[in-house]
């Protein structure tokens, strides 16, 4: 019968294509023809603008970005503007919140954050939430440094009825200069960081795969 939880690695998928896949998956889920699923993938460089996006958060105009081969997409998900690129582990979760019990989108967001924090723990990167900001930040023991928090994962979710889509983006081994063209999530004082940067390591494929495995395990433990 239809499994209740499934996690799949899709490799590199263009943003637009992933969006189409999700739309189809949401319809399947709403019709009860499939179970909940998480897709893990990477995107070629793309800047996406969510419904809360403000034009001033795009530091470089869209046309200039596109001329450099960076796709720009407007999309029906929460959150402001963000950037996706190779080395960033993107997770899309299509799940029926109503089927899992009392549907609560806040609990869903917190659940995604908690699973990512667990995964990062497994990677030796202490992470935390910051009240009032959705996303996962590096937990800095140094109080002064905490004033300029470093963000390691972004979250943005869509809802169709009670079925979710979109999800999270974890900076595993990506080149962070991609964020220079935007004000990530509209947060002016936040710097982006990555697992590679926090571990002081070179951004290798092995490290990316390790991130992927930790994330798969953490989400399986929560939703499997």
């Amino acid at each position, binding site marked *: 019968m239809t499994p209740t939880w499934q996690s799949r690695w899709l490799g590199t998928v263009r943003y637009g294509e992933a969006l189409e896949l999700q739309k189809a998956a949401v319809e399947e889920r709403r019709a009860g023809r499939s179970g909940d699923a998480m897709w893990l993938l990477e995107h070629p460089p793309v800047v996406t603008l969510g*419904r809360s996006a403000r034009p001033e958060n795009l530091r470089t105009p869209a046309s200039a970005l596109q001329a450099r081969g960076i796709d720009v997409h407007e999309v*029906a*998900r*929460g959150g402001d503007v963000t950037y996706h690129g190779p080395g960033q582990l993107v997770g899309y979760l299509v799940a029926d919140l109503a089927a899992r019990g009392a549907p609560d*989108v*806040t609990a869903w*967001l917190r659940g995604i954050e908690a699973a990512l924090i667990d995964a990062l723990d497994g990677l030796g990167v202490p992470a935390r939430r910051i009240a009032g900001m959705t996303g996962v930040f590096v937990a800095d023991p140094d109080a002064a440094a905490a004033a300029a928090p470093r963000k390691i994962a972004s979250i943005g979710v869509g*809802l*169709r009825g009670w079925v979710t889509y979109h999800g999270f983006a974890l900076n595993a081994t990506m080149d962070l200069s991609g964020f220079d063209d935007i004000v990530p999530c509209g947060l002016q004082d936040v710097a982006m960081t990555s697992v590679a940067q926090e571990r002081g390591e070179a951004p290798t494929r092995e490290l990316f795969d390790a991130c992927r495995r930790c994330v798969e395990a953490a989400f399986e433990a929560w939703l499997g």
Partner: protein
Amino acid sequence: MSVDVVLPELGESVVEGTVARWLVKEGDRVEIDQPLVEVTTDKVDAEIPAPESGVVVAILAAEGETIAVGAAIARIDAAAAADAGAPAPAPAPPATGAAPAASAAPRATPAAKHAAADAGVDLGSVAGSGVSGRIMKEDVTSAAQAVGAVAGSPAAAAAASPVPPEPTPAPAPRASARASGGFDEDRARQQFGRYTLQEGDRVEPMSPLRRIVADHMVYSKRTAPHVGTVTEIDMGGIVEVRARHKQSFRQDHGFGLTYLPFIVDATVRALREFPVLNSSVVDDAIVIKRDIHMGIAVETEKGLVVPVVRHADRLSLAGLAAAVEDLSARARNKKLSADDLKGGTFTISNPGRQGNLYGFAIINQPQVGILRMGEMVKRPVVRELEGSDAIVIRPMMHLALSYDHRAVDGAPANGFLYRIRELLEEAEFDL
């Protein structure tokens, strides 16, 4: 009557949301469940669906406006749906038709029942495409359109009278039907896929295993362009090897040596030489697998299962025989675990001797090839003996390969199958 569309309670700490984008405007007809508006809260963009079918008579919050949970953002006049110019109070018969359907086994979703009442479609005549044959809203919409299409002819006009002139908001012309060469799945299902029960018919609901097989088989045929190729094999050499070792094998291992392990061994060796047959199509890549895990299709009481011999290439002939014997026994005793059924990279099917000269099996997804054994029969064949042709009697077996032409072309497929034949006819096995 009017119904308010409110901002639902999305989450514990969500007290308000901002209207991001209206998907409909005042005056639009909407169906129940149709998305009306996108509302954002922090990090969540939620599509709010219509709670009823009807006409949007008022939009109460503008794009960019922030509204509290529970506040009304639009108003729908559900009564407006029923007056789509229907001559008679048409909903009466279909509505009573719908009510018994509701009290019967849950056959139609609430959205489908509403759509059926609106369109004057009798749910009893609609084939369901959802889980357990449930009637989905889409099934009702197609049924309504099929009736609308038939209503062109005068004879049908009388039959179609219960249907209001404009059953459902006319959708965009079926672009998908044009693009797919005139094939429209819903229409085809309505036309060809229905059967009315007769007295004496026995309805056997599909078991979970049957359902899995049904899903898999349709999916496999639809996704993989299957090509079949067949060869015939002179099994004389194998027959002889087996006859020589039959007794000692049974004494050493406790079970009988059949022909299947020989076929598996030859197939495994051929897969090493033609690795593209041991692959999967993943997105737009062909993944050639490192390991060979051989699925052996077994017919059990409950149905078809395919347990997997892991790392089949690491096993000797005796090892393969033992693995196959173990899996078959456990399959018959229903002692297979989920792990036994996972991870196969190629499949061999042996459906038995009777009525099976050869046949092309359906590929076991996500593999790209499946080999099916035919019956072994003594036949007169031509062999060259001492420089001239002679007719001899040999035990012959057909082996048929179905392969996925997305990944495998004819040359490697034929080469692979021919290699299996060579290995079996050379009959050099270590026993």
